[in-house]
């Protein structure tokens, strides 16, 4: 009692996606797949170099390719794919007007111009500063300006999404917003609030400093602003995968959404607890008060709650659907899952990878224990499970239906089979590469390092076998990337014409109605900002007041 309930929208939220819309959404996805190919090639080269059996030709520097890899896969591929997917979900559930579409094209081109500027500086060797661009390493100003344009373009895209929901709500007063649109709005809010941090660092600190207008830069402030953005960034990658898990997977397995309210609550909790936690990337940073590190570590651990809520809800969807189909026993329901459908299998492997991925994350964030893994290749192994497996395999799983849906083609049984092979190749390659990274990381092998014998120390000689294993895994992964590109090109240009379903599940028939307070956006934003102010104000003032002198730019050992 007491809690106002929302009316359900007309049961199936399914608007047709028109040709011009498709072209817009596909443009984002095209950039994502071009990035996959380029970035994947760099990944392969990195593992080969680190095996000690291969040297980069033409004087190309290791940090140049590592910067390409990190920027193009971590920042470009993810952001473009996510925006394309966001728009597809919004178009399907709340619709898009012609004007909104035009503004989104503007956002797309601003982002593309920025991406080309940044990519060019990196390829010319003028920005070998890695995707974190830590000061005092200095890149060419065009690198930072390009990044700023990408961020600004992505904001415009996000504003359009908010406008889409706003217009829809005006037309449907008192009706609960479609779950998909709710989730997209949370993720774009998360992205906007978080990227204000890097935008500030780039616009106020890096651009004037790289242009020579400011002589020095406050290194700790810039790193703190980066990680204020850097952790929510990983949730910005992850939440679209969760959207697919909550909305799409139930439909593909022939089931219903377990609980609309639980899904909304978990997204709200991710919004709250993914931003005020950036210090967990700075646990070894001198100059940050340990008390505040501890407080942010505690806040970090809060995301365990929505994560396990998600795990519970997924298992429940599987079990309820299986039992309805008549599979009994404790785990009998496992058998009904559509293992031969790549739209299910690829994201499912992604879910499995998130179990060790999440466990690793908890270890990384455990304040003192972070010292065991900090700056070791364990960390690289960790995020190749989370982003490069969980997120990427789910995105591949989305691609198998979204791309043919948008291009008016069909996922043929043959392409489905190739997709399954692709998912298996990825799993094998990543188990080898990420497994080797985890183990040798615990032995102290550093990340972000080219091949070195470290002056012949005995400890370093223990690492080399694992580096060879990483090269084997990396080669298998690269084959997986080539196969995925082939499938993508097929689905985009060559697969037979037809109609592919846009699978969005519905709620259980007798589900409890969703409480109205979920539509209280002002409340969610206010709590988010309050948590950020709580976690950052005092330590940030402390950082500024007690800063050491700023640093002049360095172009060496890496930079430009």
């Amino acid at each position, binding site marked *: 009692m007491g809690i106002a309930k929302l*009316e359900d929208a007309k049961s199936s939220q399914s608007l047709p996606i028109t040709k011009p819309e498709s072209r817009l959404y596909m443009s984002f996805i095209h950039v994502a797949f071009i990035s996959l190919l380029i970035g994947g090639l760099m990944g392969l080269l990195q593992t080969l170099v680190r095996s000690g059996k291969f040297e980069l030709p033409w004087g190309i520097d290791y940090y140049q390719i590592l910067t390409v890899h990190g920027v193009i896969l971590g920042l470009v591929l993810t952001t473009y794919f996510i925006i394309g997917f966001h728009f597809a979900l919004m178009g399907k559930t709340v619709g898009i007007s012609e004007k909104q579409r035009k503004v989104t094209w503007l956002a797309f081109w601003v982002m593309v111009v920025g991406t080309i500027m940044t990519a060019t500086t990196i390829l010319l060797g003028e920005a070998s500063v890695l995707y974190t661009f830590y000061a005092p390493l200095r890149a060419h100003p065009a690198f930072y300006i390009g990044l700023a344009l990408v961020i600004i373009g992505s904001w415009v895209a996000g504003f359009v999404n908010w406008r889409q929901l706003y217009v829809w709500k005006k037309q449907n007063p008192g009706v609960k917003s479609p779950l998909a649109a709710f989730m997209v709005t949370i993720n774009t809010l998360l992205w906007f609030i978080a990227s204000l941090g890097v935008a500030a660092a780039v616009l106020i600190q890096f651009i004037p400093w790289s242009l020579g207008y400011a002589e020095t830069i406050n290194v700790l402030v810039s790193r703190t602003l980066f990680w204020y953005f850097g952790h929510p960034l990983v949730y910005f990658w992850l939440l679209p995968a969760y959207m697919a898990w909550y909305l799409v997977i139930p439909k593909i397995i022939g089931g219903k959404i377990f609980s609309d309210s639980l899904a909304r609550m978990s997204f709200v909790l991710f919004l709250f607890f993914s931003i005020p936690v950036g210090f967990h990337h700075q646990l070894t940073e001198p100059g940050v008060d340990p008390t505040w590190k501890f407080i942010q570590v505690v806040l970090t651990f809060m995301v365990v709650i929505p994560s*396990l809520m998600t795990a*519970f809800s997924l*298992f429940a969807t599987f079990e309820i659907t299986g039992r309805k189909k008549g599979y009994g026993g404790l785990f009998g329901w496992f058998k009904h899952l559509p293992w031969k459908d790549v739209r299910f299998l690829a994201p499912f492997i992604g879910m499995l990878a998130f*179990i060790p991925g*999440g466990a690793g994350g908890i270890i990384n964030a455990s304040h003192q*224990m972070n010292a065991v893994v900090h700056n070791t290749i364990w960390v690289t192994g960790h995020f190749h499970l989370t982003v490069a497996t969980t997120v990427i395999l789910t995105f591949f799983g989305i691609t198998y239906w979204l791309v043919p849906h948008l291009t008016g083609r069909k996922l043929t049984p043959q392409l489905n089979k190739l997709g399954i092979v692709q998912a298996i190749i990825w799993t094998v390659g990543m188990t080898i590469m990420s497994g080797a990274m985890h183990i040798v990381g615990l032995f102290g092998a550093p990340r972000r390092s080219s091949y070195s014998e470290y002056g012949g120390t005995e400890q370093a000689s223990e690492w080399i076998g694992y580096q060879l294993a990483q090269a084997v895994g990396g080669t298998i992964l690269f084959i997986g990337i080539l196969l995925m590109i082939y499938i993508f090109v097929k689905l985009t240009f060559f697969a037979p014409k037809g109609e592919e379903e846009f699978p969005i599940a519905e709620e259980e028939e007798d589900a409890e109605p969703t409480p109205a307070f979920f539509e209280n956006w002002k409340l969610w934003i206010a709590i988010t900002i309050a948590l950020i102010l709580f976690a950052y104000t005092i330590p940030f003032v402390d950082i500024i007041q007690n800063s050491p002198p700023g640093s002049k730019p360095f172009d060496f050992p890496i930079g430009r």
Partner: protein
Amino acid sequence: MSNLQEKKTDPNQKKEPELKGTLISVFLVGAFIVISWIGVFVLFISR
């Protein structure tokens, strides 16, 4: 335009779905997390 459908059943009569497998699965995930954590914690202590 309003769309007040009669779909609410009596909540007391609703049969709760059987979710034993789900419960055990989530416990297994939790156990995996705890075991991994302890593993690295032991390493941390022993170094």
